[in-house]
C-alpha cells in the first residue's frame, strides 16, 4: 500500500478511496464482485418518493433539489483531491428536517426505518423490509456519532432543515469499519463531506428504493459507520437478502480478537448541503 500523500487524487478510476498505509482493506485494488446498479430514478422521482415517505417540505422543488446537487458536483469536480469520486455509483438524496427526536436511535427506529419500509414496500409489495437487532441490542439511547466521521456536521444541518446531496455507497468498499472512519481525516471539504451514516443512507434508500435491487449480482452491505453503537462490537448496516431489503445491527467481530475486513462491506461517503 502506498504511503499517505495528500497532494494527489484520493480516489481510483472507479471512485473508490485509494487505501494507504495503515488501512485494513480486503483487497488493495477492489474487485468488482459486489455491485450496485446506478439507479435511473430522476431528481423528480427521488423528490416525489421523499415527499411521500419522508415528510419533505412540499415547497422544495425538483429544480432546487437538482440545482443544489449539481452545485455540489461541480464543487467536488473542481477539487483535485476528489477527482474520480463521481466515477463511482452516486445517488442523489434529500433528507428531511429533524422532526422530533434528539436521540439518534429513537429517530432511526421511529421515523427513518419506517420511511424506508413504506417507500420500499410501495414499489416492491411482494418483498420484505425487515429490521433485526442482533442479540439483545437496542437502538434507543445507544447510538452516537463516531469520532473522525464528521457526521456531527450532518446532524447539525439536519436539525436546522432539509439537506440535499450525493451518497457514494461504494467509495469505501472493502474497508473495515475503523479504517472507514480514520481515512476521513484525509479528505477535504470538512463541512460538506462526511462518512455516511443512518440518515443520509436512509434518505438515499427512500428516494431510490431500488438501490440494492440487483438481479444478477450481489450488492454490497452498506455500512452506516458514521454511527457508533455503545457496544463497540456492533455495527449498523443496510443489506439485501435476495431482493429483500434489511437493516441490521450486528456484530463486526470476525473472532473475539479481530474485527471483520469483508469484501462485501462498504462504507459510504456523503456530499451534502442545506436546501431551502
Amino acid at each position, binding site marked *: 500500500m502506498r504511503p499517505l500523500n495528500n497532494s494527489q487524487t484520493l480516489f481510483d478510476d472507479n471512485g473508490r478511496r485509494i487505501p494507504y498505509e*495503515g488501512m485494513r482493506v480486503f483487497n488493495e485494488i477492489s474487485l468488482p464482485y459486489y455491485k450496485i446498479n446506478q439507479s435511473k430514478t430522476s431528481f423528480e422521482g427521488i423528490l416525489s418518493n421523499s415527499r*411521500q415517505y419522508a415528510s419533505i417540505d412540499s415547497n422544495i422543488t425538483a429544480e432546487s433539489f437538482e440545482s443544489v446537487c449539481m452545485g455540489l458536483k461541480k464543487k467536488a469536480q473542481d477539487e483535485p483531491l476528489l477527482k474520480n469520486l463521481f466515477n463511482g455509483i452516486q445517488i442523489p438524496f434529500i433528507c428531511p428536517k429533524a422532526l422530533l427526536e434528539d436521540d439518534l436511535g429513537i429517530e432511526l427506529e421511529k421515523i427513518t426505518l419506517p420511511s424506508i419500509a413504506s417507500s420500499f414496500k410501495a414499489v416492491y409489495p411482494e418483498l420484505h423490509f425487515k*429490521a*433485526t437487532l442482533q442479540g439483545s441490542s437496542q437502538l434507543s439511547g445507544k447510538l452516537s456519532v463516531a469520532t473522525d466521521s464528521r457526521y456531527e456536521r450532518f446532524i447539525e444541518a439536519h436539525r436546522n432543515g432539509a439537506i440535499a446531496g450525493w451518497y457514494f455507497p461504494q467509495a469505501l468498499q472493502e474497508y473495515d469499519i475503523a479504517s472507514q472512519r480514520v481515512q476521513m481525516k484525509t479528505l477535504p471539504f470538512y463541512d460538506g463531506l462526511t462518512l455516511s451514516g443512518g440518515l443520509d443512507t436512509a434518505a438515499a434508500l427512500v428516494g431510490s428504493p431500488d438501490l440494492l435491487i440487483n438481479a444478477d449480482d*450481489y450488492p454490497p452491505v452498506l455500512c452506516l459507520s458514521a454511527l457508533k453503537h455503545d457496544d463497540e462490537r456492533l455495527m449498523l448496516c443496510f443489506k439485501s437478502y*435476495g431482493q429483500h431489503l434489511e437493516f441490521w445491527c450486528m456484530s463486526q467481530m*470476525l473472532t*473475539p480478537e479481530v474485527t471483520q*475486513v469483508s469484501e462485501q462491506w462498504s462504507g459510504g461517503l456523503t456530499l451534502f448541503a442545506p436546501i431551502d
Partner: protein
Amino acid sequence: MQTSIPLFSQDTILTGIEEKKRQDQSEVRPRVHEKIQNFFRDMSSGVISPILRLKTNRSLCNFHCDHCCEEPYMDRDLKKKTGSRDPRKHMTIEDYAELSRQADEYGIFRFVLTGGEALLDKNIEELIVALDPMKHLIILDTNGWTFDEEKARWFASLGGYKVQISLDSYVEEEHDSFRKKPGSYKRVMRAIKASKEEGLELLLSTCIVKDRVFSQEFEDFCEYCSTEDIPLYVTLVKPVGTARDQDDWVCAKEDIDHLKNLEDKYNIFTHMTPSYGQPGKCITVKGINTVNHDGEIIPCPYMDLSIGNVTHMPLAEIMDRGMKDKWLGPYRDECIIGENFNFIKFHNDSVAKHLKKSPLLPVPYEQGFAIAGKEDKNIAISTVGNTITEVTV
C-alpha cells in the same frame, strides 16, 4: 405517512415452538442448553458454534446419485481409479470421544452423522455413545433406505435428536431416477412416518439444480412440507464430486433470490438463511465443518480443501485458522462453492492439481488453502493486521 415496523431481536426472533424446544433442552440436555445460551450471549464477540458434520465409514454409501460430492472419498471410487482402498487411518472411537470433548470445550453443541450413508456404519452406535448425546445434539443424515420403525426406535433410545432425510424430488419417479435407486422414494416416506411416530425432530433435505426452484414440482414439494409441518432444508448443487463438470447445474442468483422469496411463504431454509439472530451468509467454518474419516476438517460440506487435521492439532486452532482465511472467515452473502465462480475455479484448480499427485481427498491444508495464500494472495491470515495505524494529516 410512516408505518411502524417491528424490530426483531433475540428476544422476539424465536418462535413459540423454538422457545419451547430450547426450554425442553434445559431439562433433557442441560449442557446443550447451557452451550446454546452461551452462544447467544457471546456471538456478538465473534464466538462461533458451528455444526460438526462427521463423514464416517470412509463415506460408504448404497446409492450412486448424480450429484454426489462424496463419491471421490469412497473406497469404491478409489478402487476403480487405483485398484486399492483408502490407505489412511480411520479415526477411532477414542479419537471421536476426544473430538467430542474438544467440541464441548469449544462450545459446539451439534454433530451431524453422515457418510455416504451413516447407517451403513457398523460402529455407529459406539460412535453416538462416544459423542455423548447428552452433551451434543446428534443429527442423523440419511437417505432413508434402512430407516424404518425399528431404526427410529433405536436412534431415539440412544439419545438421537433429529433425522435429516434426503428427498430430491416430490415426484417419485424423478427422485428414484436422480438417486438411481428404485423404491427409494417409498423408503423416504416410510422413514418420515417412522421418525414422526418416534417423536424425533425431523427435516427433509433436497438438492436444487439451476431452475428447479421455479418448477411446479418444487412448489408442490414446499406445499407438502408445510402441510406435514416438516422443515425443508434446501442445498444448492455444487460442481464438485460426480458433478465436477456440471457448471450448468450451478444455481444463478435468480434461483437463490427466488428461494429467499419462498422462505417467506414456506418453512424452507438453506444454510444461508438468517438463523440464531444472525444474518444470512456463507457459513464456512462459522456455521458448519465436515470432519473426514481421517480427521481432516473441511470448512463446508461441499469443498475438498482441508483447513487442518483434528487428530494432529487442536480443534480450536483449526477453527481459528479457518476464520482467518480470507475466503472462509469474513462476512459474505453468497455460497462461495455454490455460486462464486472465482472461488469455484480456485477450488477446482487446487483439487485438480492435487489429484495429479494423489487420489486422496481432501487436499491437505498445506497443499491447498495455505499455498493459495502465497500464490494467489487469497489469504488474509497474517497479512491483514488487527491494528489500525493512526494517520496524521
